[in-house]
C-alpha cells in the first residue's frame, strides 16, 4: 500500500519529520500519548507498526505500550482505510429502527463485510455506536457527513453519489 499521508510529498522522511513536529508540540504536556496518536492518524490515515515504533522511540517508551494503546481504542487503526469511510450506526435507537437491515444492504451493495475495504480502495465499511443523531434514526455517516431517516432503498443512491464525486 502506498503512503496515504496527506503531507503532499509522499516522501518517507517528511512523514517522520512531521511526527517529530507533533511530538515536539506536546513535549511539556502530561498524558500526551493519545493526542499525539490522534494527530498522527489524522494525517497518515492509520498507524502502521513502523510509525508506532518511531513514536515509541521518540517518547522513550516500549513499543508494546504504544501498541497497547492503539489496539485498545476503536478509533485507532493499524490498517489503511478507503477513501471514504462509511459507518452505520448500531446504537440502540438506530437498531430498533432497522439499522441492521441498512448494514446488510450496504454489505450487499459494496460487496464487503464490516471492517473491510473495497478492492478499488474507495470505501471502508464500519459499524459504530451512536453518533447522537438518534432523532434521525437510522443514520449512517460517510466521512463526516451524516445521512439520516434512511430506508434500505436509500443505500445505493448514497454510495453512488460518492462514486461519482471520485
Amino acid at each position, binding site marked *: 500500500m502506498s503512503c496515504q499521508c496527506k503531507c503532499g510529498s509522499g516522501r518517507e522522511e517528511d512523514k517522520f519529520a512531521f511526527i517529530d513536529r507533533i511530538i515536539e508540540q506536546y513535549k511539556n504536556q*502530561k*498524558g*500526551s*500519548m*493519545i*493526542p499525539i*496518536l*490522534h494527530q498522527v492518524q489524522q494525517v497518515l490515515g492509520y498507524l502502521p507498526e513502523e510509525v508506532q515504533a518511531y513514536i515509541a522511540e521518540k517518547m522513550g517508551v516500549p513499543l508494546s505500550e504504544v501498541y*497497547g*494503546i492503539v489496539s*485498545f*481504542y*476503536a*478509533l*485507532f487503526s493499524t490498517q489503511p482505510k478507503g477513501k471514504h469511510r462509511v459507518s452505520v450506526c*448500531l*446504537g*440502540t*435507537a*438506530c*437498531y*430498533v*429502527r432497522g439499522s441492521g437491515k441498512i448494514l446488510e444492504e450496504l454489505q450487499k451493495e459494496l460487496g464487503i463485510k464490516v471492517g473491510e475495504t473495497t478492492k478499488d480502495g474507495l470505501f471502508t465499511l464500519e459499524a*459504530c*455506536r*451512536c*453518533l*447522537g*443523531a*438518534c*432523532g*434521525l*434514526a437510522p*443514520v449512517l455517516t460517510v466521512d*463526516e*457527513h*451524516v*445521512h*439520516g431517516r434512511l430506508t434500505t432503498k436509500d443505500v445505493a443512491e448514497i454510495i453512488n453519489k460518492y462514486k461519482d464525486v471520485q
Partner: protein
Amino acid sequence: MEFYRSHVLVCTGTGCTSSNSRSVISGLRKELADKGLEKEIQVIETGCFGFCNLGPIMVVYPEGVFYCRVSQDDIQEIVEEHFTKGRVVQRLLYHEPNTTVKTQEFNDIEFFKHQKRIALSNCGIINPEKIEEYIARDGYFALAKVLHEMKPEDVIEEIKKSGLRGRGGGGFPTGMKWNFAHKAQGDQKYVVCNADEGDPGAFMDRSVLEGDPHSVLEAMAIAGYAIGANQGYIYVRAEYPIAVERLRLAIEQAHKMGLLGKNIFGMGFDFDVDIRLGAGAFVCGEETALLTSIEGKRGEPRPRPPFPANSGLWGKPTIINNVETYANVTRIIRNGWEWFASMGTEKSKGTKVFALAGKIKNTGLIEVPMGTTLRTIVYDIGGGILNDKKFKAAQTGGPSGGCIPAELLDTPIDYDNLIAIGAMMGSGGLIVMDEDTCMVDIARFFLEFTQDESCGKCPPCRIGTKRMLEILTRICEGKGVPEDLENLETLAKTIKSAALCGLGQTAPNPVLSTLRYFRHEYEAHIYDKKCPAGVCKSLLSYKINEDKCRGCSLCARNCPAKAISGKVKEPFVIDPEKCIKCGACMEKCKFGAIERK
C-alpha cells in the same frame, strides 16, 4: 448596538446540521441581503432545540413562530410572506400528531409544553459561538458571585442542600463528592468533566456542549474554587466534532475575557480547562477508566477505593462530574438551592434530560421535572408510538439499564424508582420499543455491546458476558434449551457482584429486566421455537396466502434465493428449504399475500 425587528433562530446542532441547516442559513442570509432586509432581520445560529426529528428547525421572534423541516426551497417564500408581508407560512408550521391542529407558537407545542428546561435553558436560545450571548443570559454571574461572596465551604453547602445528584448514571450526591475532594489533602487537585457520552441512544451531553458550552466551563471553574483546584479537563468523545469545536472556541473566548486563566475577576483565583479527546472506548465513561485514559494509557478501570476524590488523576484529588450535572450547577448558584430543591421528588431533585428515541413519533431531547411519569413522556411529549402500534417497553440507562413494561408506565421516574423496577436512570437515554421489537434480541443486542466494549481486565466481565452472549445468541437462533434461563440468571448474579467496575456490574441488567418482565418471550423462543415479534430470523417462516396471491410473480422475481415458484395467475409457493428469510418478497408484494410467522 444594532437593532433588528426580527430574530430568526436556526438550529446548528448535530441533528439539524445533518438535515442541512447550514445551507438553509446561508440561503436565508443571501435572500435577506438580496431583498435589502439584512439590517432588519438577524439570522442567529443556535444550539439544539431538542426536536431533532423535525429539523432543520427555525424559530422567528418576536412572534415565536416555529417552522420545521425547512429546506432551501422554502426560503424565498418565508422571506416574501413572513418577513415582507408579515404572514406566517402555514405549511411549514408544526402539525401535532393524531390531530389536524397546526401550532404556530413554540410554547404551545405539546412536545415543549410539558418540559421544564434548566440544564437546556440556553440550548436553542443563544448562539453558542458567542460568549456575549451567554453573558447576556446571566452567564458567568454565578462564578462572579461565588468568587466575590462565597467561601468554598458555602458553595459546597449550597450544592449539597440543593439535592443535586450526578446526572451521568450513578446518581451520587454532587455536593458530597465535592466535599470529599475539598477535604482531601494535596498540593494539586483536578476538576474533570465526563463528556464521554457512550450510552447508545443518549445525546444530551452533546447537545449541552454544542448549545451552551460556557455553562459547563463556568461550572467547572466554580467546582475548582470549591475544592481548591486550578486545572480542569473535559474528556469528550472524538465522535462529536461540532461539540469539540465549540468547546475550543468557548475556552478561547473565556480566556480573552479573563473568565478563565489567571486571576479571574481580579480575585486571585486561577483556573484553566483543557480538552482531551476520547478514542472510541465505551469503558472510558467509567470514572476511573476515564482518568487512566486522560493520563494517556489504556482506559482500564481500577478498583475503588481509593476514590478519585482522594486519589484520582495522577494520584491527586479529583472530582469527575457529568456534563448535565455541571449545566445545573450555575443555575443552582444563581437561583439558590431552595429553587432547585422545590422541583422533583423527595430524593431526586430538579429535572432530568432524556433523549427520546426509538419507535416514537416525536424523537428528540426533552427535559422534565424528576417524578414525571413515563406515560407523560411517551404519550404527551412523545406523541405516542410510531404508526400507532402497541407500546411494549421503554429502555432506560443504555447497556446498564433495563426495560420498563407497559404496566409500569405510571411510575414516577426518579433514580430510586427506576432502580426498584430493575432499570436505571443512566445518562438518560430513553428508547421506546413497540410490538415489533423482540426483547430477547434486544437483550442479545446489549450483551453484544458490553461484550465488545468489555476492557478485559476482570474475568467476570470478560468471560461472563461472553458466556451470556453465547446463550442469548443460541436462544435467538432457536437452539435454546430449558436450562438456559437458569444459567443466564446465575451468570448475571455472579457478574453483578464480582465485576470490577460499573460496566461489568451493570452489564447483566438488560437480561435480568427482560427476564423479569418478558420471560414469556424467552420461553416462546426456547419451547415453541417462535419469535413472537417476528424478529429472530432463524425462527421465522414465510408463507404465501393462497387466497390473497394473484400470481403476479413479483415475489419470485425479487427472491434472491430463487425459493419462490409458481405459474402466473395462480398462487405461488415458497420452498422453506431454499428460503433465506430475507423478507424481500414480503416487502414487494402488493397484495399483502405473504405472511411471516
